[in-house]
């Protein structure tokens, strides 16, 4: 298997506070990797560094052999790294369709951008369907529910055909039914993409995760299958008092 993402010795400091402390992480081509860890572990910060939003003080991020640190955000996107945000952000004044179309058009040259959109490309149409938003295509994205926004964001990511998808808590705040559908969507996406998902929800994890990386205080604490990670005493220690793991453990007993 070839390594797609190779993070080495990443260190991020926010005015004295060490958010990432010499983090190492490797993700292989075609993997579906779950990233967990208590609040403040540095999960979002890691995504921020990979996508160029935050500059590390030390360390490197190699993506398919290319160094990403020091590149500007849109350049990294153009190299094939896409992300969603912990709180889904879409363009509320634009319609759902326009949001997707804009995401899909990022490789067009300036003169062709000046032209009007003609119809709906197959890619955008299929993303509309995937995100279950076909009926809302012409409504402004501002009217979407929380869950629908997350899906739109994932759809916007898919039409960009990235080689690596970084999803930051895609099911946070979703209803049980929405979670399930998102999980299925995630599996479908993972069949053809390399995906890193940050997720807190243990039940979700157990259903859909293969390999899990646990982060704590800016470092990788443990890596392994869901079962391995759940049984690890250190991981339990870190999560102690956190309902997620306790609840999950209790469920297992019953």
């Amino acid at each position, binding site marked *: 298997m070839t390594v797609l993402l190779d993070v080495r010795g990443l260190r991020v400091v926010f005015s004295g506070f060490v958010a990432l402390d010499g983090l190492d992480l490797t993700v292989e081509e075609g993997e579906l990797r779950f990233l967990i860890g208590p609040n403040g572990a540095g999960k979002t910060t890691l995504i921020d560094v990979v996508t160029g939003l935050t500059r590390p003080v030390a360390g490197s991020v190699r993506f398919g052999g290319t160094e990403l640190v020091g590149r*500007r955000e*849109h350049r990294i*996107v153009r190299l094939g790294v896409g992300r969603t945000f912990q709180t889904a952000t879409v*363009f509320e004044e634009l319609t759902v369709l326009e949001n997707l179309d*804009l995401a899909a058009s990022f490789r067009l040259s300036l003169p062709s*951008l*000046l032209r*009007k959109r003609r119809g709906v490309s197959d890619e955008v149409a299929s993303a509309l369907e995937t995100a279950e938003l076909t009926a809302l295509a012409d409504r402004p994205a501002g009217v979407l529910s929380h869950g629908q926004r997350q899906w739109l964001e994932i759809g916007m990511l898919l039409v960009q055909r990235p080689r690596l998808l970084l999803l930051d808590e895609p099911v946070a705040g979703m209803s049980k039914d929405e979670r399930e559908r998102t999980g299925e969507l995630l599996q479908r996406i993972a069949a053809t993409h390399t995906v890193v998902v940050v997720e807190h929800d243990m039940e979700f994890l157990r259903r859909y995760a293969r390999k899990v990386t646990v982060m704590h205080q800016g470092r990788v604490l443990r890596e392994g299958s869901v079962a391995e990670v759940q049984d690890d005493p250190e991981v339990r220690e870190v999560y102690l008092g956190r309902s997620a793991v306790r609840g999950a453990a209790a469920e297992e007993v019953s």
Partner: protein
Amino acid sequence: MSSRIALALCVLLLAVAPFTLSPFRLGLLAKYLCFAIVAVGIALAWGQGGMLVLGQGVFFGLGGYAMGMYLKLSEAGSAGLPDFMVWSGVEELPALWKPFANPVFALAAVVLVPGLVAFLLGLLVFRQRVRGAYFAILSQALAAAFVILLVGRQGITGGTNGLTNFSRFFQLDLTDPNGQRAVYAIAAVVLGLVYLVARLVIRGRFGRLLVAVRDGEDRVRFLGYDPAVVKTVTFTMSAVMAGLAGALFVPIVGIISPALLGIVPSLELLVGVAVGGRFVLAGAIGGAILVNYAKTAFSEDFAEGWLYLQGGLFVLVLVFAPKGLAGLVTGARERLAARVRKERVA
């Protein structure tokens, strides 16, 4: 449909104006059309792109001076020197002026100089992620600096007097009503063209991208676009429009001077757009014409008060009708449509 009818009506009004208005009134209308051309650019940059351009006077001035320099040279006496240079004892034409004797060069400069200045400034400023109030203040400071430069280099620029005393515009005699009508017609056509270009830009994908940059510049980066490029291109377009307007202003009003380009005139350009509605091109155009008409009407016997009235109007609009008159119209139309729908259902 109704907006098409409104558009046709406006075109008709502009077309009959030369035959119904006195030369004096027509000249005023032509001047308002110049401001309307600037307004289209402001609506593009501010309304669609969220860039609060407080220094459009600079680009208006660059276009105006480029045109004014050509016109002065075309009317220069045997020494080949503009009148004001002769009076202030300049003996040789400054190097900066020489190429402007060529009409093609001058016309190109009208477009290219404001465009290039805005392009370079935009790249510099937007790359550094200067935005919001910081950008607004920067653009305003630019207007102030431009005026100081113009006033300071009297030998080249005509100082506070600026460039004035024009009697010909290419083949047209500006003292003749027919010449004036022709200049008016040119302004109306340029306004129409500028409007069409802006409309195309707004309706294309680029227009959607521009709105996206306005509402979430940082998010746009993660779609793979560089917001600095989008903003620079738009800012440049708005500057070119202001430059064209400045160039037309010269034969229409007969003067271009620093007093027309500083902070206050730059702000005045914005007030019309705010009042008419910055999110709708037609609103911006209408607002610019309306506010400048009001200015003329009030200034005739109420000069001092106008400044306060205008300031008050600006604040009032921003607080109570941020979408301007156009926003009030579309709002009313939507409410009406909603009521009609309800009645049909009932």
